[in-house]
């Protein structure tokens, strides 16, 4: 470019186009583009327009220089184009669903073993999991942007009829079920901490009287928290798989037996509840190991366990036989 005069709008426009193009193409494109712009300006001036106005109008008509440069270079004007988009979204979802829950669980276990306080535990887990999620999104996106730029023009995973989704049936795990499980688990874990720190009743020294036996703390409370987390993970996997399978059934039975079994065992050996709490309203005899309350709770828990197991077995059997409870269209049921 000659620089004896101050640069014109055209100079700046042409530079805006050229600067992102390979050095080898610049000279030729510059000569041609300048001629085209000058021709267009001349045509307007011949129609009686002011030269400065004509220059502005022509450049505005040519539009964003970066867009024109992308046209010359054959670069896509999208980070990830339609060919790769479906693969990108699918992989990203898959990674997030697998990695984030695993990371959360791993962190919770690791930090609990270290003996960190609850607030720190939650805080550090949330920040780390958030960072992991951002990293996952960023690096996955970057890989796909590189694929897009290096000219991958067809989907990575060719469409295959075996991947078609199965129609939803009454047995198909629903998102609402997953959400309910997660809320229930959070509520249970929260309640364990809450009853320890702020009970309804205080003792003579003003300390809260917890509902649960203090002897549960070193071992059993982490076990129950772990079981709650595993139950949520099971619900997530169940939802993702979309139907009951034998491994999922085995997992469900193990979780039910472990959770309800340990509760029943703790109840009948008198390790679950804190007699001092129930003494506040004179129920200690009811929740004693031979009390009517204990018997009722054991009966109730057993019924819940059996009902849950039978339900899971029936759903698995129907799913394996390819039978379905009446097909339901994806309308909200509740």
């Amino acid at each position, binding site marked *: 470019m000659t620089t004896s005069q101050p640069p014109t709008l055209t100079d700046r426009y042409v530079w805006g186009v050229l600067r992102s193009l390979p050095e080898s193409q610049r000279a030729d494109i510059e000569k041609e583009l300048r001629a085209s712009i000058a*021709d267009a300006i001349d045509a307007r001036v011949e129609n009686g327009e002011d030269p400065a106005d004509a220059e502005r109008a022509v450049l505005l008509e040519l539009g964003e220089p970066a867009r*024109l440069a992308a*046209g010359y270079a054959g670069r896509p004007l999208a980070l990830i184009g339609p060919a790769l988009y479906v693969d990108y979204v699918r992989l990203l979802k898959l990674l997030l669903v697998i990695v984030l829950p695993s990371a959360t669980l791993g962190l919770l276990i690791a930090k609990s073993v270290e003996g960190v306080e609850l607030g720190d535990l939650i805080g550090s887990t949330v920040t780390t999991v958030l960072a992991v999620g951002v990293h996952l999104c960023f690096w996955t996106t970057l890989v796909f942007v590189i694929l897009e730029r290096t000219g991958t023009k067809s989907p990575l995973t060719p469409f295959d009829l075996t991947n078609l989704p199965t129609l939803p049936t009454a047995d198909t795990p629903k998102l609402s079920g997953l959400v309910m499980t997660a809320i229930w688990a959070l509520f249970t874990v929260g309640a364990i901490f809450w009853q320890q720190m702020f009970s309804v009743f205080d003792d003579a020294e003003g300390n809260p009287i917890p509902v649960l036996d203090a002897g549960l703390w070193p071992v059993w409370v982490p076990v129950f928290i772990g079981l709650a987390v595993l139950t949520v993970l099971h619900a997530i996997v169940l939802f993702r798989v979309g139907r009951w399978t034998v491994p999922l059934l085995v997992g469900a039975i193990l979780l039910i037996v472990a959770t309800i079994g340990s509760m029943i065992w703790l109840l009948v050996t008198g390790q679950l509840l804190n007699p001092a709490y129930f003494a506040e309203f004179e129920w200690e005899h009811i929740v004693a190991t031979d009390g009517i309350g204990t018997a009722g709770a054991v009966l109730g828990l057993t019924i819940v366990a059996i009902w849950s197991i039978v339900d899971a077995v029936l759903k698995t059997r129907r799913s394996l036989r390819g039978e379905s409870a009446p097909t339901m269209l994806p309308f909200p049921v509740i």
Partner: protein
Amino acid sequence: MTHSNVWDVTESENAQSQELRRGTAVLACLLMLRSPQYGYALLEQLSEAGIPVEGNTLYPLLRRLESQGLLISEWNTDESRPRKFYRTSPNGDALAAVLLEDWRNLQASIDTISRKAKS
């Protein structure tokens, strides 16, 4: 449709019309450049011929067709303003013939459908 917003209708007509015209620019260029021409003049010619193409589409398109061997270019420095002239190569001619055949077949198909729909 009669009571829908007029602006919406023209907007959607424009989009559909653009969609239909996409691809005709290549054929029009290949046919028009059987006699050599430079960028801006071709833009004007196409517009007069009823195939308006934006400069920011046409200029990169010409270079792309050239790199695909469908056009041949030559700088003309006889006049005070050097201009790059393009003309259709034998390969470009062959492609134009194929595209023209497609175009005529499409037109025949659309005509047939249109007639059937009427009767």
